[in-house]
């Protein structure tokens, strides 16, 4: 899996000038340029894409970020921001002729205001570290990606990350008050504010989910929530994914917004059970986890309703966590689904389509057919309440041809999601991985608008320039390739 680069090689003299100038504004330990030092940065969580950057800078202060960006702008060197490198779409994939700007040294929690329920943090702070730091005040930061022990809040901003609780508590965009961002010209802009809205256009909404292409986020003020007094989870097993899907619709249709509503298919459940022994039923075609939180009274009445709905929808087994230890055990399986699958096979490829929930059965059916067609297994975990599907394609990159097959299988799944009224990415971002599928989801003028938005922030097109938004030339090549593989994909499906 490799994609072409846009930027020509720097001359030896320019390269030396770049390193000299960077060296003048950074401590020695913050500038890496030898191959052995830069190689650890060659990929993010999507290890199929690798490129060794020209240099890695690890600024310790916002001023150093400003200085680095100005130097790179002057010398026309592209800059790729990087948080913890857990991204799953190649968003932090370096550029061979570019500088990777890592935020890992900017990891201080600058201020916590328990009364106003905010925390001001640097971008390299780990997601979970925020909740840990504010726990003594009875508060927490709600978005909880499964990678939360490792991923950075800066990366969360760039991907608009979600977690198993975002059905009720929202995505990153719903839980941030303000951002400080440095533009490629080295200007500092403050977006959002400590109130509940900001003057002018909502630039913060644009910045969130922009995959490091509009500016470097150097400070984030997040919203904190009081911890619910009680949480309880129902585990329900079904003998078909269709019934499980119907149960999801029935819960929401009953006016319940659970704190989390997740689904796993049999392959995923079995993989997880071997890994963490969460106690999942192994004969079920699909299991649902449905969490309720709030006051003890609220939880009791909601859980009773959920159990009824699950039974009415034909659950073969319904269990309810008896205490917090059991609740966490039920969740541990879901939260470790990716690594669990990773233990079963040499490689897996995680997809991230979102679909209208009513099309779940049809999409899972389509994935099963693609799985047979490509001769590759695929386990499915699903943020069911939000319609966000994570198929995990299982393969072995050491077997010739399997990487390419996995990539094609993945592309087919994403295009299936678009055809079913959905989108190619719910929370992992387009990055390098899904850039061709952007050509399927958007028209030429829409892609042009995205380029214009980028120019409004980054007129020189130097920040993470070859990610997320494809050039029209690239789309033309991709269109030719797809059509040559035989007409439109999924001709049998209705078009939305």
């Amino acid at each position, binding site marked *: 899996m490799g994609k072409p680069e846009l930027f020509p090689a720097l001359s030896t003299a320019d390269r030396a000038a770049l390193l000299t100038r960077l060296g003048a504004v950074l401590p020695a330990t913050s500038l890496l340029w030898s191959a052995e030092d830069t190689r650890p940065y060659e990929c993010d969580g999507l290890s199929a894409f690798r490129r060794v950057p020209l240099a890695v800078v690890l600024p310790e202060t916002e001023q150093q970020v400003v200085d680095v960006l100005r130097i790179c702008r002057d010398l026309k060197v592209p800059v790729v921001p990087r948080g913890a490198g857990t991204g799953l779409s190649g968003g932090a994939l370096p550029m061979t002729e570019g500088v990777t700007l890592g935020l890992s040294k900017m990891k201080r929690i600058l201020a916590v205001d328990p*009364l*106003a*329920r905010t925390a001001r943090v640097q971008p390299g702070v780990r997601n979970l570290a925020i909740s840990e730091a504010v726990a003594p005040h009875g*508060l927490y930061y709600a978005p909880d990606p499964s990678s939360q022990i490792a991923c950075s809040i800066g990366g969360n901003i760039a991907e608009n990350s979600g977690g198993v609780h975002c059905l009720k508590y*929202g995505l990153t*965009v*719903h839980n941030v008050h303000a951002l400080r961002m440095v*533009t490629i010209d080295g200007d500092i*802009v*403050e977006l959002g*504010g*400590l*109130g*509940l*809205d*900001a*003057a*002018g256009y909502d*630039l913060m*909404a*644009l910045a969130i989910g922009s995959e490091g292409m*509009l500016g470097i986020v150097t400070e984030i003020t997040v919203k904190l929530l*009081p911890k619910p*007094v009680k949480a309880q989870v129902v585990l329900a097993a079904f003998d078909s994914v269709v019934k499980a899907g119907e149960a999801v*619709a029935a819960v929401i*249709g009953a*006016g*319940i917004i659970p704190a989390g509503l997740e689904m796993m298919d049999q392959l995923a459940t079995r993989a997880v059970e071997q890994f963490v022994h969460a106690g999942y039923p192994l004969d079920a075609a699909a299991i649902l986890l449905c969490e309720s939180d*709030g*006051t003890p*009274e*609220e939880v*009791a*009445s909601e859980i009773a309703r959920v159990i009824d709905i699950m039974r009415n929808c034909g659950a073969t087994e319904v269990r309810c966590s008896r205490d917090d230890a059991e609740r966490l055990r039920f969740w541990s399986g879901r939260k470790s689904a990716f690594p669990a699958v990773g233990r079963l096979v040499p490689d897996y490829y995680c997809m991230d389509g*979102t679909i*209208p*929930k009513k099309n779940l059965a049809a999409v899972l059916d389509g994935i099963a057919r693609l799985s047979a067609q490509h001769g590759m297994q695929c386990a499915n975990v699903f*943020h069911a309440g*939000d*319609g*966000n599907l994570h198929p995990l394609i299982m393969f072995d990159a050491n077997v010739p041809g399997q990487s390419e097959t996995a990539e094609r299988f993945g592309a087919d799944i994403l295009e299936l999601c678009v*055809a079913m*009224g959905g*989108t190619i990415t*719910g929370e992992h971002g*387009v990055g390098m991985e899904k850039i061709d599928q952007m050509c*399927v*989801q958007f028209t030429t003028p*829409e892609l042009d*608008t*995205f380029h214009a938005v*980028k*120019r*409004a*922030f980054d007129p020189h097109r130097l920040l993470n320039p070859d990610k997320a938004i494809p050039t029209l030339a690239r*789309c*033309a090549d991709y*269109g030719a390739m797809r*059509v040559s593989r035989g007409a439109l994909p999924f001709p049998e499906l209705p*078009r939305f």
Partner: protein
Amino acid sequence: MNGPLAPATVDPTVAPFVDRILAARAARTPLRIRGGGTKDFHAARLDGDVLDTAALSGIVDHEPSELVLVARAGTPLAEVEAALAAHGQCLAFEPPRFAHGGTLGGAIASGLSGPRRVSTGSARDYVLGVAIVDGRGQALRFGGRVMKNVAGYDVSRLIAGSWGTLALLTEVALKVLPRPEAETTLRFEMAEADAIAQLARWAGQPLPISASAHLEQTLTVRLSGAGSAVDAARAKLGGDPVPTHTADAFWNALRDQSAAFFTVPGRTVWRVSLQSTAPPLGLGPQCLEWGGALRWIAGDVDADTVHATAARHGGHATLWHGGDRGRGLQRVAPGVMAIQRRLKAALDPDGLFGPGRLFPDP
């Protein structure tokens, strides 16, 4: 499928709007996009030929179990809310009406949210996708009908709150929520500083507070949620219960600004959005909302003072109605303003839509 592989088709209800925009562009006459006109009062300037969205009407899709509603921009807000109510659902951000005849497009384009904003989020938080026509007459779609979507920049949320100055909104997809099962309103006699402190303490606990207001010496608080949770909170908070019909009238009057505070003839009103825990501002008669994060200030207050006070508390001020509108309604830092202008030029290169409505021309 949408992409470059598919033939371009323009929705027949949208086509006349595309023609109108192209004609205006050719003639270089600005357009003033108008839904129900219920927010005409909020403008630094109202310039251009009216582009009425009434013909863009109708709910396109509402699937209660998807929690998604899609409607054309000119659909009356009342129609949308009735359709949702029939399934026990609502627009959680409680869009203000101000007057009869408002449209969904106007609610989203203004980005305004009512009293419930403090607990459930703002209009833009519920936007899932939009269809727009830009200043070049191009029909474009961003976002979608699904809850989570990071494909491309979030242009939909940028459109929310752009007051018709970036593009014509033709269709909106929104996340909708079930209506709260139970609701109760409580009243407390309390000075402003005490109310601010009390609201902050309550907000730090898992209480189902869905609205709050402090006017003169009275704090009014609404609880919404599961019956059991509302009952438990009511017992904990104390206060005097307000009968349901009085409470509904109170919150609606606050939401729609038909309350006496807002209707004094000739009164200038400032909207100050700031950190909820900011101490009393002492700028004049005031109505406080959103747990302290929103303060409406009445009277002829010095503009520089209001802006500076808001900024000191991490917020911003808006000249809401009345007053000297010549310098624009809000102040934006120069760096941010430069980006805004470039975005405006990207979507509306000829400055067709609502010139000077929010900011003076450069």
